[in-house]
């Protein structure tokens, strides 16, 4: 029940969910790099196939994938229009005043839009299939080499997991305080701006006070159990690579190889209409 409010994690059992979080983080980073490096539709199509295949293997419904695009509808439209009208290569298809619609412009706009869609859905795959806790564990493990440079990897991971842990608690608290103030006649949804601001203050002040109180209690509890940072600390769930991680890495490498080949072959054969 509580998990519901935690990020976008889609809790099902699938081979993708079972992968080591480090594998998933590195794969997503490489995939994003590939999407940026790739300059042909063919390469993007390969990336799209990859994203679709992973979402299928991860039992993520298509509707869920599309919902991650909600946040960028506007950006998508903006990018598309900007590219359509500011790229003036190829044959002119339609003209109206200073607006020129060219074949090159349309291609370029489609390319950019597709790239954005793939970037966002690809990143979405990570948050759909990896719980926030796994994600922080994975990040901490990946950042470990940086500790040599005095980078506080453990501390950052700990802060992230505490912050995540507190989201549902504070949500519940907000709900409680909101109800209590509503019962005292505070109105959060209607009324003048001045009145509504007053209502929000009656919500924020107790919330802030309680956040500080909880932080203090947590610090005390950690200290009482002799928490002293990451040094020499063992963990309950040790991250281990399995055979499936090797398979995943191989798939990503194959994708990279395909895009590299595609780049060198196609670019040398066709005129460069993307640039």
């Amino acid at each position: 029940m509580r998990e519901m409010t935690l990020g976008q994690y889609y809790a099902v059992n699938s081979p993708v969910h079972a992968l080591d979080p480090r594998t998933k983080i590195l794969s997503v980073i490489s995939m994003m790099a590939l999407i940026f490096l790739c300059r042909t539709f063919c390469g993007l199509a390969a990336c799209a196939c990859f994203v679709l295949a992973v979402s299928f293997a991860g039992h993520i419904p298509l509707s869920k994938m599309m919902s991650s695009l909600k946040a960028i509808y506007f950006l998508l439209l903006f990018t598309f229009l900007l590219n359509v009208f500011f790229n003036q290569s190829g044959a002119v298809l339609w003209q109206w005043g200073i607006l020129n619609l060219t074949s090159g412009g349309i291609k370029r706009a489609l390319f950019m839009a597709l790239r954005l869609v793939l970037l966002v859905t690809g990143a979405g795959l990570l948050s759909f299939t990896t719980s926030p806790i796994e994600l922080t564990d994975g990040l901490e493990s990946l950042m470990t080499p940086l500790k040599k440079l005095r980078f506080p990897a453990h501390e950052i991971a700990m802060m992230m997991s505490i912050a995540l842990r507190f989201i549902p608690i504070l949500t519940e608290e907000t709900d409680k305080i909101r109800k209590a103030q509503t019962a005292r006649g505070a109105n959060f949804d209607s009324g003048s701006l001045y009145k509504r601001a007053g209502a929000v203050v009656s919500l924020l002040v107790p919330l802030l006070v309680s956040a500080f109180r909880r932080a203090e209690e947590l610090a005390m509890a950690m200290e009482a159990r002799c928490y002293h940072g990451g040094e020499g600390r063992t963990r309950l769930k040790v991250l281990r690579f399995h055979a499936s991680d090797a398979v995943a890495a191989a798939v990503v490498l194959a994708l990279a190889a395909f895009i590299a080949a595609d780049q060198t072959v196609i670019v040398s054969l066709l005129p460069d209409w993307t640039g």
Partner: protein
Amino acid sequence: MGISIQNLTHVYHPGSPFAVDAVHDVDLEISDGEYVCVIGHTGSGKSTLVQHLNGLLRATSADKMEIEGIDLLQKKPDWRALRRRVGMVFQYPEYQLFEQTVFDDIAFGPKNMGVEGDELTAAVRDSMRLVGLPEETEQMSPFELSGGQRRRAAIAGVLSMRPRVLVLDEPIAGLDPTGKQDILRVIDAYHSKTRATIIMISHNMDDIVSVAGRVIVMHEGRKVLDGSPEDVFSDPDRILALGLGLPTVSRIVREMNARGDHIPASVCRKEDLVRFLTEGRA
């Protein structure tokens, strides 16, 4: 006026896999001036039930919901009037204090209801007196008060609206014995002074038998028992089966009966037991 509810059902997250049937088919008739205690195990739906009384939750379905003359099943009930008539004190109410002074905090409710000027001042001072907050705390920050005082200030913030129905969700949780008695006395004083209806959720059976005129037992979203404390506790096995505790006196009676006494199980108050033992045995 009073409260009249028929077939109230409340489902959290309806239609989702997380749907929870929190309150199921509850009928409730409460007349003016009653002192009702609602008891039940954690998750029995008692908090959900009482939050309907001032519209913080809306029924998923109900055949009748009439509270203090306001029909809650109509499209747009007058929420403000309802919330003025039905005051609600939540668990740990001191966590909702937010104003810079105790006075302002207690005035928050009535101010929202449109009370102003001398009337507002009078309402605030009255409720401060009622809960026993000394006048010099008026201009203090609520965060300077002691724990018990903070709780009383928060309750004063609800009483200052002069609700005709006062709903309290475990108002004495987490207080020391003196603090508990103070709060119970405040509620009792408000009850006798204004003849308001009191509806209190509580876990302390001893307090319940000493203050309540009526006890409602909730179990898994349903109302399973409803009657005077004598009626409700007269079947101790049933109460224990519902995962609830017994008042100390009922426990003593049970123990004595197990050893061969014949005290009626409905005896649940100290005075009644003493009377029974002194008169009945003479």
